[in-house]
């Protein structure tokens, strides 16, 4: 059985690979792997995933900025309501049963996977 640190290495690598392959932040990979490999609770996994995503997205956005692909104004326009949304989402999450959180996660994954395979 790989050590705890080795599993974190594996999760980081998997997240980066998915991010490069599909242009997503990696949260869809990090959350389930933290839960199944490191026995995280649901809420802990989502909070820790967000911290990892900060680093991953900053690296990705920085690289894209070098190519001039980032539109900061558009980013603020869609990001500002999202910051309000994430405050609401995290507050709401504390009040919901964990079962609901994992169900919401499964719905998100199945929906995005279905759209991708069908498209």
């Amino acid at each position, binding site marked *: 059985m790989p050590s705890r640190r080795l599993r974190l290495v594996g999760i980081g690598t998997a997240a980066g690979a998915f991010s490069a392959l599909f242009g997503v932040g990696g949260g869809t990979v990090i959350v*389930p792997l933290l839960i199944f490999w490191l026995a995280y609770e649901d809420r802990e996994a989502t909070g*820790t995933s967000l911290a990892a995503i900060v680093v991953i997205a900053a690296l990705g956005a920085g690289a894209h900025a070098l190519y001039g692909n980032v539109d900061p104004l558009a980013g603020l326009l869609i990001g500002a*309501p999202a910051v309000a949304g994430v405050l609401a989402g995290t507050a709401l999450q504390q009040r919901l049963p964990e079962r609901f959180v*994992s169900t919401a996660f499964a719905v998100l994954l199945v929906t995005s996977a279905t759209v991708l395979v069908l498209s």
Partner: protein
Amino acid sequence: MEATDLIGLLVIGGAAGVVSGLVGVGGGVLFVPGLVLFLEQTQVEAEATSLFAVVGVAAVGAYRQGGYGNLRLRDGLLVGVLSPLGVVVGTVVANEAPERALQILRSAPAVLRLSLGAPGDAQRRGGSIRGLERGVMFRP
């Protein structure tokens, strides 16, 4: 920009934030189509702009989760810092593997999640790889 486009951006941004806070993703899954649809950005521009927005959203979300006692900062930073290793692996695979195989691989997390059931079960099994195997065997 039309008023309807602006409203669309604000609504999809807010929705992405709620999803981000609830399930711990960055929100790019909604940002990217929103930017393509309402600002007519190209796919690459939308992904770049989405990543830029995700930094702020995830930072605020992680900070709040820290306040709620749901953040293991060292683990999160370690996963994030190691991700460039995976970017190299992913880029090589993307250039070597056929397109269809990638689309199917993309659905792997959903399949994994469904076949294992609720995470609470995983914890009772010890959250180990052995538990993961047992979970697969015992579930239809």
